[in-house]
């Protein structure tokens, strides 16, 4: 399997993605943003379609749309009471725009399927390098703001009391999330991005009680999902996204069961 160049690229790309998602996902979950992440992935779909329509690469289109809209969505949804409603509105609008741009660019339905469900085995060396570059940016910025982001995400009231600049943390985090969504979309497709950005981290919180250990667990769960998913996809010729989603869900349900029995014991 590893003698095939496209499988080497697929494994390299998905390893990078599991690391980025595992890291940033811990903050997505602690900041209670899984729904926003789902919306960003739909915005990514519209961005990729827009990119094709105006002659940009899908990744560039995604980056433009997700980065601009993440800040807008974050600002609109800053009040918890209207967060879900405003995210629903934006999500609907962008799915509609995605469909429109696809229709205008005269691309076939299979292209839409690629954007929505990903095409991990279609990754070439250039895509991998681009992904590595963007992932390094995300990870370096995360490490620079790590302590403040950690405080703001795991104890926002305490962080505000100690003068941590919450609005700056929020904007920087949303931009990093938008970048990550655009990177991950290449592999699992925009519909299943939130699986890798939320489930490994949501499972990790039942096994670890420090942020660094949660990040390590979350990365490990992500890696299991993408590595095993790629192998099963290769063996069965079924979609890789299906396997990744199923494995991550199984890990999450096991984490819930572990937590249930631990509380009972």
């Amino acid at each position: 399997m590893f003698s095939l160049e496209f499988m080497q690229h697929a494994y390299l790309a998905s390893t990078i993605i599991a690391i980025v998602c595992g890291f940033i996902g811990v903050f997505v979950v602690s900041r209670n943003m899984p729904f926003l992440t789902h919306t960003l992935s739909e915005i990514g779909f519209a961005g990729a379609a827009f990119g094709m329509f105006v002659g940009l690469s899908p990744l560039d289109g995604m980056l433009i749309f997700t980065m601009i809209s993440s800040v807008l969505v974050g600002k609109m949804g800053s009040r918890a009471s209207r967060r879900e409603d405003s995210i629903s509105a934006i999500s609907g609008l962008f799915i509609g725009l995605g469909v429109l741009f696809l229709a205008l660019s005269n691309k076939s339905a299979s292209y839409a399927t690629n954007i929505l469900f990903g095409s991990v085995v279609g990754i070439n060396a250039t895509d991998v390098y681009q992904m590595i570059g963007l992932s390094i940016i995300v990870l370096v910025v995360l490490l620079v703001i790590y302590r403040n982001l950690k405080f703001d995400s795991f104890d926002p009231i305490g962080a505000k009391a100690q003068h941590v600049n919450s609005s700056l943390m929020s904007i920087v985090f949303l931009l990093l999330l938008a970048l990550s969504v655009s990177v991950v979309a290449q592999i699992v497709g925009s519909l299943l991005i939130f699986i890798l950005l939320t489930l490994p981290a949501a499972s990790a919180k039942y096994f670890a009680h420090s942020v660094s250990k949660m990040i390590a667990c979350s990365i490990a769960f992500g890696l299991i999902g993408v590595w095993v998913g790629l192998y099963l996809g290769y063996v069965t010729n079924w979609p890789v996204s299906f396997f990744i989603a199923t494995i991550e869900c199984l890990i999450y349900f096991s984490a819930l069961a572990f937590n249930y029995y631990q509380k009972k014991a």
Partner: protein
Amino acid sequence: MNDLILEAHDLWEDFSEKQVLNNLSFKLKRGTFLSIVGENGVGKTTLIKIILGQLKPTKGTIEFFPNRKAVKIGYVPQFRNIGDEYPLSVKNFVSLNFNGYKLPWLSRHEKARLKQILQQTNLTKIENEPLGQTSGGEKQRAYLAQALINQPDLLILDESTASLDPIAKENLLELVKNLNQKTGVTVISVTHDIPLTKQFSDEFLLLKADGYETGPINDLNVYDYQGGQ
């Protein structure tokens, strides 16, 4: 040498619907345990926000000694959203306040300070337990430890004992009083609990709708205070 930590000069705060803090002036000496008492709506939280720099008074000023930047403030807010499934351990929650743009991991000095504050707040035994699964009193001690970890000059407690049972309330205030005496940290505690206030504080500031009273804690007349328990 001036042994004051702060002095309020003629503070007024006008909100559109009402006015609070009518010409409030008071001095606070370093190392003092001051309790701010008064009915709901008389401006206790407003005063705390002004001291923290989160709100500007309509009139008047707060002067810090030697200056605002030199006075480190630790603050324990009234509400915290820590549910049953909150994942961080007590130790990791307390260390969140080692913030700033520094290396992601704790330095040797920070680890030593963490150990010390956990001991001082009687949290060492439960330092690895998830905070979400600790009792109300243990949570309040963890909030206190987090506020104290950077060795503030001034510690502000905003109704920290409100949700606790009588024994946990007394234990927490006893702990704060001990730290106040041992480390010399100045304490401002907003509370409705007059008997405990009289037991642990040095001075009081009673805010009323039409003015205020301040003085040594023994001069606080329970009958002056309408909102107590």
